[in-house]
Each structure stands twice: as structure tokens, then as C-alpha cells.
């Protein structure tokens, strides 16, 4: 039997994985006032990483991305929780947010809100949870 190879898959993955990363960041940032947000952005990121796992196998990708996905869950939760209780310390209601307009290089004047930090926590948690589940199943022979 001829040795199977995934040449097409591998070639497309190099391209598509980066498109997916870009799209996930777009979705993550769009979440403030349009459909999107941390949850769906995180899901997209884990889809991109999953695609890489499918094309290159467990060992190679673990070398490229040496991230402990289990650890991402508590880190993400901590960020989300800290930003939400931050408002308690200055006497505002729980989960309250604040925002301001900043002049960023290249992008011009943009609105930045503390809700984005909360979303970052959600993003990390979702990536952590979904990849932990997928890799646990994949490791199970």
C-alpha cells in the first residue's frame, strides 16, 4: 500500500490556520457592539489550533505551541473575575465597566472599554476548555 500523505491538507492548513487566527481576533474585538465576543472568538481560535493538530499530529504541534491548556482555564477565569470585581473596590456595582477614547498608533482614535478585559478572560477560558476536552479525547486510545 502506498504511504498515505496529507499534502493538500498541510498546505492549506498553513494558509487557513492564519486566516482563522485573524478572524478570531476580529470576532473577539467586534464583540463590544456587534455579534462576536470572547466566547465565539475563543471557539475560532481553538478551531484553528485543532486544524493544526489534525494536519501535523499531536507531537509536532505540542512542540510549536507549548501551552498547558488546563492552566488557561483558571487564568481566564481569574482575569474575568478580577475585572468584574474591580468595580466593587471603587464603590461601583459589581460588573460595572468604564470606557474611554484613546488615540492609538495606526488605528486612529478608538473606544476601549474595560469590558474587553472581561472578554479576554472569557476568551482564554473557552480556548482552555475546548482544547482540554478535544486533546483528552484524542489522547485516549
Amino acid at each position, binding site marked *: 500500500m502506498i504511504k498515505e500523505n496529507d499534502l493538500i491538507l498541510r498546505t492549506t492548513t498553513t494558509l487557513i490556520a492564519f486566516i482563522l487566527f485573524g478572524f478570531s481576533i476580529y470576532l473577539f474585538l467586534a464583540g463590544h457592539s456587534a455579534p462576536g465576543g470572547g466566547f465565539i472568538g475563543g471557539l475560532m481560535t481553538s478551531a484553528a489550533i485543532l486544524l493544526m493538530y489534525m494536519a501535523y499530529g499531536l507531537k509536532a504541534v505540542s512542540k510549536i505551541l507549548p501551552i498547558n491548556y488546563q492552566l488557561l*482555564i483558571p487564568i481566564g*477565569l481569574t482575569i474575568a473575575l478580577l475585572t468584574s470585581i474591580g468595580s466593587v473596590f471603587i464603590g*461601583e456595582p*459589581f460588573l*460595572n*465597566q468604564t470606557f474611554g477614547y484613546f488615540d492609538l498608533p495606526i488605528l486612529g482614535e478608538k473606544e476601549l472599554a474595560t469590558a474587553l478585559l472581561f472578554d479576554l478572560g472569557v476568551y482564554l477560558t473557552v480556548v482552555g476548555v475546548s482544547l482540554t476536552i478535544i486533546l483528552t479525547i484524542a489522547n485516549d486510545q
Partner: protein
Amino acid sequence: MISNLAVLPIVIPMIAGILLAFFHKKIPLVRSLAKILTTTNTLVVLFIWLYVKENGAVILETGGWEAPYGIILVADLLSITLVLTTNIIGIAAVFYAPASLSKKQEEFYFYTFFFLLITGVSGAFITGDLFNLFVFFEVLLMASYALIVLGGGKVQLRESIKYVLINLFSSMLFVTAVAFLYSVVGTVNMAHIAERVQGVEQKGILTTIGILLFFVFGTKAALFPLYYWLPKPYTVPNPVVSALFGALLTKVGIYSILRVFTLIFIHDTDFTHTFFLWIAGLTLIFGVIGALSTNNIKLIVAYNIIPAVGFMLIGIAIFNETSLSGTVYYLIHDMIIKAALFLLVGAVVYLTGTTDLRKMKGLIHHYPLLGWLFFLSSFVLAGIPPFSGFIGKLQLLKGAFEEGEILIVIVGLLASLLILLSMIRIFIQAFWGEKDETVTVNKAAARRFTLPVVFLLFFSVFLGVGAELIFPSVEQIADYLMNPEIYIQSVLKE
């Protein structure tokens, strides 16, 4: 009263859970941290309880969004009392856990999931928003799914599949019911729903939604036709987990029924509450039959959850001030005593190595303290005066008597007798009898098990003996439940 106090009972356990997830491998550190954090949380909740008792409900509009639009948290006296009870059980569980769990189970995030369970339960008690109630149900169910498979024995996995499936199905029904209600009244804020329900023309559809919600909560609370899933999954996990499940999960269901059917669906009490009375009676009878039908001591205690839920439902069905105070009192009493009983039975099973009643005898010669604690807790559970079960049942049945529902009084009294019989059966079989010389006695282990149980029974006995001190608060809650306008006004501020 707007204040961030309302969110603390939810946030503190969550922080604790996350914190402990970081060093889940360092068991001695995690153990002591868990003990410190639960105690801290309980003290904070005690402080909030005193504050609420003095100043009325604490309300928090999260993110600064005003009441009908944003998510609100309402810590009224009922909620915060139940949260306090939850935390007392939490302390006992954390102190009991090291003795009962294996090293592997403790390492596998037991404390994290425990704290998440507490977060979910406290959140479900405190939230003032029907959809958020669903969210917190999911939080506590997620934690419970993880806790029930902890250890991962074969039987455990088989039972937990049943548990997960039934809960997923009822969660789906819950969302559907909330969506229906939203389409009728256009809001998910409980106070706002309660206000708008009065203006709805077609009461029929509201009754339908009400019964649908009742079935959802009834599945969680293990009421008559829906209790079949409960006993076995509750016996398979570790005793600490069983105790948490038995003490907290069904009570969240019954609390939701209590809240929803005293606040929102009160337009057709003739139909709904008569229906509840029948369900309550049948729950009592079938639960007791289950408890008498088996020789597995874990199963006997698990079956005893069901008649207790039946008793609480009587109070909601009768729906007068006396009976509601009975329900609230019984709810607190039952949470504590069920936790204590599950922990005791867990200790017995650990020490004898079997769950079969017929294989045990004469334990009282080896472990006298354990035996007498069990004897005491059976009396508390069955409602022998002056213990707390008696006062709760007295109020419930007095309420029923006032409304002329004699049949349910008879069923209730009969059921309590049979509960006593089922408990005393364990006592006679397992603790009395000749001394068994062949067994190896492990006094040190027994001592580690008894301390948390003594702690819980202390509260339980205090609840009965010190009823004079506690009862005014309970009556205050019952009065508050009878007048939903107070709740609506305090939330919507009109």
C-alpha cells in the same frame, strides 16, 4: 438597599475555586486554604444575614443597569438564610473531605468543583432573574457532573449518565418555559414578571407555563412522578459528594418552586396548589415505601430525601402563613440533617466496608459516639420533639389543619412514623446486636469522621431547642412570602 454585599456570597467561593485550581497538586496547602476560605465565606454571609435582618433586602443591579433591564441580585432574608445554611454544610463537607476522599480524588480538582457548586447554589438562591436562575442551575449542575464522576468507578459512570441526561433534559425544558413566559409577559426579571402577570388577560397560558416550570423544578427537587432518577446516582459518589447533593441540589429545586409559586403564579391557586397537594401526598407515600424497601443503607438515606421534599411541598400547597413558615423552617432543618446523615452513613460504610445492612452488627460496641450520633440524627429527622423536624412538621400540619385538609395531615403523620421506622431499622441492625470480634477497629478514622457531623448536629439540635430564637425570623420570611408586593416594590422601586 443597593449594595455590592449581595454579590459576595457568589464571588468569594468562585475566587476560592479558581485559586485552588492553580495548586491542585499541593494537597496540604489546598486543604488548609479550603478550610480558611469556607470559614471566611460563612462569616461574610453571617454578616450579610445580620445586615439583611436589620435593614431589609439587599439588592444589586449588576453593571449599573436598572432593575427590569439589567441582571439583578436580591439577597432577601429567605435567600440569605438558605445561603448561610449552605455555607454551614460547606464547612462540614470541607472538614470531612480529607478523611473520606482518596489522594487522587482530592488532586483532581475536588475543592475547585466543590466551591463552584457552592457558587451555583448561592447564585440560584440570590438571583432575582428567572433566566439567571437557569444560568446558576447550569453552574451548579456542571460542578455536580464533575463531582459525581470523581473517582470514576464503573457503577458510578453508569449512574452518572442517567443523572446527566435527566438534568440536561430538564434544563432544556427550563429554557423553553422561560422563553414561553418571556413571550407572554416580555420580561425575565422575577419582580417585573410578577407585576405584569396581574395584567395578563389569558390566565390559562400562565397556568400552563407555571405547571411546566413546576415540572422542571420538580425534576430537580425529586417530586412524585419524577423522583425515580434520584436515589441511585446519589449513592454512588463519595459520601462528601452525596452529602452535598442530598443537602443542596434538591433544596434548590424546592426553593425555586417556593419562590416562583409565591411570587409569580398566584392567580389560580385553586388549581395549581390543589395539584401540588396531591403531588406532595404521593411523594410522601412513595418516598417512604422506597426507604423501607431496601437493605442498602446509602439508598435508605437517599430515599429519605423524597418524603422530606413532599413535606416542604405541603407547605407551598396549603399556602397560608403558618404552612409557609413550616416550609421555610423544614427547608433549613432538612438541609442540615440530610448532610449530617449522609456523612454519618458514609462513615459507617467506610468503617465496615459494606453498604449491606444485613452484614453489619454491633457497631455501637466499637464506635459508641458514632452510634449515638446516628440515633440522635434519626430522631431529628423523624421529628421527635423537641428536635427541629418536629417544629417544622408541626407548623406544616397546623397550616393544613387550618385549611381543613385532614387527609394530608394523616398521610404526613403516617409518613413521619415510617421515616422513623426506616432510620431505626438501620440503628437496630447496624449498631445494636452482639459485638463482632472479627472486625478490625479503626478508632482514629472514626474520630476524623465524627467531628464535622457533631458540628452539623449541633446546629440541627440548636434549630430545635433554640426554636424560640429562630422562629421570629422564619415567621418574618413567611409573612414576606405571603406579600409579594414587598418584593416587587423593593426591586422595582416604585
